[in-house]
Every structure is written in structure tokens, then in C-alpha cells.
């Protein structure tokens, strides 16, 4: 089942958060790939062609906005939904993400459960809780 689940690329420079989301997504039945910055995110995206990308916007080197712009500009990856993740709750953060091409926007702190709900929504999957399984 794990081999058949949708592939989610989790991009976050903060390891605890990245692994937490990755672990929970796996727990919830998704396949997960990880990237620590924008460049890795692009590499992984082009090589793995994930079903969805969870993109933290504040990244060292190439940031999430730029990575998203390049993904959306490339015909190979343009159709992959990008869910932006940010701890910046200040005004304008969500607009900047939308402009960069993000399809959805989630503010940290975001409970793993809430994130999975958003991922399922974006992929058009039925909402089931882990306990339901």
C-alpha cells in the first residue's frame, strides 16, 4: 500500500518539522520524498515527478517562492499542485505565495493532521483519519 500511495515532496529546511510531516504522511499512507532547499526541491521534483509538493517558503539559498516560480514555469512540473507552508503570518504572505504560483497556503504551526486534510483536499482524495483505518 505504501508503494502505491501518492508521492508527496516535503520541502523544509527545519529538519524536525520536515521529518515530522514526512513521518505522519507516511503514517497516513503517502509516499514521501524530502528536500532541504529550493535547489534540492527542483531536482527532486524533476526526477521524481511527485503528485504534490509541500513547500516551506523561507528557505536558505533558493527560497520557496523562487522554487515555486520555476516549477510552475516548467511544463513538466507546472501541473503539480504546490501547497505553501509558512510561519510568516504577516499580511501579504499568502498573496506573495499565490503570485509565485502556489495552489494552496497553510500557516505554521500546522498540526500534521490538518496538513493531511489539506493534502487530501488538493489531491481530491476522501478524508479519512488514521484512526479510521
Amino acid at each position: 500500500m505504501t508503494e502505491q500511495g501518492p508521492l508527496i515532496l516535503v520541502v523544509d529546511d527545519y529538519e524536525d518539522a520536515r521529518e515530522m510531516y514526512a513521518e505522519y504522511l507516511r503514517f497516513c499512507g503517502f509516499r514521501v520524498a524530502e528536500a532541504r532547499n529550493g535547489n534540492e526541491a527542483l531536482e527532486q521534483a524533476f526526477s521524481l515527478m511527485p503528485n504534490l509538493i509541500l513547500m516551506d517558503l523561507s528557505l536558505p539559498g533558493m527560497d520557496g517562492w523562487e522554487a515555486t516560480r520555476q516549477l510552475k514555469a516548467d511544463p513538466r512540473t507546472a501541473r503539480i499542485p504546490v501547497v505553501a507552508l509558512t510561519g510568516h503570518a504577516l499580511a501579504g504572505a499568502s498573496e506573495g505565495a499565490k503570485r509565485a504560483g502556489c495552489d494552496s497556503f497553510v500557516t505554521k504551526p500546522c498540526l500534521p493532521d490538518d496538513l493531511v486534510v489539506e493534502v487530501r483536499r488538493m489531491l481530491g482524495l476522501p478524508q479519512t483519519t488514521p484512526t479510521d483505518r
Partner: protein
Amino acid sequence: MARPQPARSLARQTLSSGTEAARLELLEYFLIHHDDLQRCAQASLEWLHRYAGVKRSVCLLADRDSGTLVGVAGFGVGADDVEMSESSLSDEGNPLVGALASAEPIIINSGRANGGSTRAALGPGAYAAVPLRGVRDREEGAVGLLLMRPGSDTTADLSWLSTVLGQKLDQIRGRGSLAEEVRKLRRERSLLFTIINSVTDPIMLTDTEGRLIVANARAEKLFAAGEEESEGRRRAVELNNMLFSAALSRSAVEGPSEARELLLVDPSEGSDLLFEVLSSTVEDSREGTGIVSVLRNITDLRRATEQIEENYQRLRVLEAEARTERDRLNLIIDSVADPIIVTDPTGETVLMNAPAEELFTVPVTAADIAERNVQANDAHFSSFISGLLLGEGGPREIRRGEIGLVNPSSSELIPVEAIAGKVQSESGELTAVVTILHDRREALERVRLYEQLKLASDELQARVQAATAELATQNELLRRQAIELEQASRLKSQFLANMSHEFRTPLNAILGYTHMLLHGVAGDLTVAARRQLTRIDSNGRHLLTIINEILDITRIEAGKMPIQISEFNPSEIVPEVMAELDPVIARSKLIVTPKLDPEAPPVHSDRQKVKQIVVNLLSNALKFTHQGGIEIAVMHDADTGSVSIAVSDTGIGIAPEHHERIFEDFRQVDSSPSRQYGGTGLGLAICRRLAGALGGRIALRSNLGQGSTFTLTIPVDATP
């Protein structure tokens, strides 16, 4: 009439004693009027009438030079009849011509032809023609003829008369042509008329009744009007006649000597004419008593008199005015505080006002020093005006100068400014010099005071400038401090924003892993572990709330809180809020009652912010209420166009003195570390700021132990 000398040559005639005196009377007359042929003839005919009873008679004179028989006098017949009874001496058939040659009177029968106009003059019937014999018994016959009705008892007188008159006429005629004499008379008469007509004053002869007998042309204009004249003119003339008659009768009563005035009307122009009437009575033997009046036009004279009178009165008024003016001028000059002196060209003072007198006259009770002072003043003044008196400078030159005078009594120095000007007659001759002295002591004192004042003012100004500079320095300092404070505030906001972000990242992991553990990602949990994880979760969430609230305040202060207006019904907010807080409500065991206004209209506002406020108010109410209930009411005020959401509780209440304080940042009523109630103390501060951002407000009605009601009021349309 004065009695003349007795007649000489004619007195030798023998006369009857009864008529001796009568004959002498005639002869006397002849002597007086010895050269007037006509008068002598006329007097003879009158004599005949008086003494011989001849009622009508005519005297004819034979003028051999012109060959005519001319009528020269008539009695009892018209004057025209006399003048017209002229006939030719060469007419042999004329009985009168024949009578001239006769020695005795002849009777001419009126039935016979050639009676001429003489017969008509005497009337029909026979008449006697008495030849008048001259001194020289000439061939040509009698000098003239007397024509009359024949009578028996007149012969002696008639014979005497014919002789006397004949000789007299002969005498007079010897001096010239008879006809010439007559014509001369007529010319004289005409000249006389011309003369009196040429007199511009009206001259009139009237009878005693005022009836006009003779009038000159001017008088006729006033007193005579023919039928052909205009109505107005005739009336004027009539009026003039009445006025004149009245004047005459007055003069008759009061005596003629006085000249009197008479106001008449000019018939031509209708204007008034004033005349002075001089009347004198004349006696005329033929015409009887008459009155000669000379009217002198004094209209212009009167007008001139009145004019003179008027001018005189005006002059009197002007003189009075001039006197008043002069008095006033004197008063003014005296009332001028500055000394004024008027000097004539010789340097004599002709006028000075009271202040000048104080300087230039010695007081009665003065000491010697006063006299010397006055002399000194005089000398100074004289030298000042001497140039002007000597004719220096132009006619309009004003001389200014300073003179050092002294007060005669006190010897106090009086510096004066003297201003002198010339007064000149129209011909440019200098008539006076007027000098005004102005005491400069006051001005000098003023200058001194001004200097002092200026000094003080300068000092003050310097102080003000120093103070201003100090103030500017302070202001600059304050400005810099303000900038620094602003920067510090901005840094604080930025720091808080960064910190909240930094807080979130670890908190995200804490909450996330706790969540995962609770969801059994790491396998089943013991009851104790689950309870402990639940504590971590709840405290983490509380920490998150605090961080979010700090972030909200920071955003609002930085003006970075976006307002998103949408249309929604405020009533639908209430169940949503209640749903959100359902776990808390359930735990509190309180009853929360919504009271919704179905009439409340939809509002245009920020739905999320309104909801946030109500959540905050309700959670506060739940936190501070231990028993009783909570009510959430939605109300609409159409008058003010606002909607209110009121959250009322039966909680501990707030003392009035704390009503304001609880809306301040990080405040609770109890701020002590050992306080009973948790929370950041930012909730109400945020609510109030959010309400303000929506154009609304939050009001509190509460008392200690009596519950609280927080009311959010927002406008129906918050669109800026």
C-alpha cells in the same frame, strides 16, 4: 399879476370916465406883451366881451407880404375856425377885402356871397367888419379887421379899441411879416410839443378832476389807449388813470408841495413802474385851473436804493462775521500751547499769544533777573527773524532753527524749535512774519526715553533670542528623541514579529509530535502517558494563542492588519462562535443563550474580525462566570445605522474604576503573579483596536459582583 407902470402914449385918448379903468387895463396888457401880436389881439377880443358884451368875435390881419388875410384871434369861436378864416387880399369880390379899404365899419350881410369861413365862424346872419387903422395911414388901407355881430351901444368902445389895436398891431407888424409871425408861432408850438414829447418823464396837464388835457408821448403811453389797443393794455391804462386820479385828489387834500410816489403799471410790459409825482396847479384864464404833473420814473432808483440797502446789510453781516472770525482766531491762537508771535516789517511785535507772552513779557511781580531773561529772549528771537525781515529768501520761504530761550521767572533753559514764515500782501509786499516756537524739552525727553526703551528692548530681544535658541535646541533634541522612540517602537514591533515567527517553528514541532503521539503514530499509549501528552498539547496551544495575540497587536500597531470587507448577516456569526467555543461551553456548564434580531440587516464589514471579537468576548465571559448564564444579543439601530452584538454574563463583574484599565495592553484587573485567571491580557486590547479599525467601538456596562455586558457596535457599512 403885478401892476405895471401907467401907460404913456396911449393915455392921451379921450375916454369916458366909466370905461377909463377898463381901457387902461387893456393898454397895460399891450405894454406888457408889446411884441406878441396874437396875444394882443386875443386880449382885445376878451376886453370887448367883458366891457362891450361882444359874445363872439374874430380878429383878422392883412399880411401884405404874403397877400393874405389871416385870422389871428377869436373869441367865442373855435381855434380852428380862426386859423381857417384865411383869404386872399387880391380877391376884389371879397367884402372883407373891401372893408379893409373902408374908413368906417361896414355891415356885411351874411346873405351875400363870399362871406368865407368867417361867416361860418360867427354863425349865420349879418356881422360888422371894423377896420383897424394903423399908425401910418397907408395906402393899402387898414391893418386888419374885427368881425362881430353888429350892436348899438358898443360904438364908442369899439371905435377906441379899433384904433388902439390897429396901432398896436401896426407897431408889432412893422417888425416882421405877420404871416411869418403866425407860422413862427405854429413852429414854436410844434417845437414845444416835440420838446415835451421828447422828455422821457411823463408830463400831463389835467383839470382838477384828473381829466387829461395835454399829455406828452410818454404820458399818453401810460394814460391813453385807443379802441384798437389790446384789452390788457386798455385795462392797464384804465387802472393807471384811476391810480393817478386818486393820487391827485390826495394831493389836493394834503397839499401839493410834497412830491409823492405813485405805483403804475407799464401797459406794454405789465411790469410795475414807480413814479415820483410833482404836481403844481396852474391858473389859466382861458382854460381855467389845471394841474401840471410831472412823473419821474424812480423804479430803477428805488431798485438801486434797495440794492444799496441790501449791500449795506450784507456788509454789516460780513463785518460781524469777520469780527467773530477774528475773535475765534484770537481764541485759537491763544489756545495753541506753542508760543506764536506776529512781527511787522519793522520788527515790532504786533501780536502774541499767551504762551508767547510768558516768554517775552516781564511779569509784573518779576525780579531783575526776569527782565534780563526777557531781553535775552528778545535778542535771540530778533536775530532769528532778522533775515526774513530783511527780505532774504523767497516769498514762501519757511525758516527753521533752534533757539535757546529761558523761562523769565525760573531761568530754566527752554530749547525751542522756531518756525517762521512770511505773510505777504497781494502785491508781494512783506506785511508780517509769523513765528511759532515749539518747546523741544518734551521731544528731547522723549528721545532720551526712547533711547532707554530701545536699550531695554534690545536687551529683551537678546534674551528672547537666547531663549528661542534654547527652545530650538530643546525642540531638536525632542525631535531626535521622537525619531529614536519611533525607531525603537518599530524595532520592537519588528522584534516581536520575528520572535513570534521564531516561537512558532519549535512550537510547530512540539504540537505536531504531541499530536502524532496522541494519534498513535508511535503505537498505543498508557493512560498516564496520554494524560501527560494531553497536558503538553493544551499548554502548547495556550502558548500559541499568546504568540498569535502578540502578533495581532504588533500587526495592528504597524498598520498591517488588512481589513477585508464582505456582506454578511451578523446573526449568523453567533452560532459559529458558539460552535467554536463548544468544548469550553460544555466544560463551564453554563447556558449560553443567543438572542437574535430577525430584522437585523446584512452588514458590510470584515467578517473574520467581527467573529474574532465575539469569540474573545464570549471566552472572557465564560472564563469569569462561575454560575448563572450568558446571553449573546444581536440588535439593530436603524437611526444610527449600526448593529450591536452584546455579550452579557452573570460573572464576577468589574468595578467602575477598572473599566478603562482592562482595555489596556497586557492588563487584567488582577495583574499579580498569583492571579486567579489566566490569559495574556491582550484580548480586550485587540478587540478594541479591531472594533476601531471597523469604525466601531466596544462599550462596557458592569459592576463588581453584578455581571458584565460588553457590547460591540459597528456601522452597517464599514467601507471606508
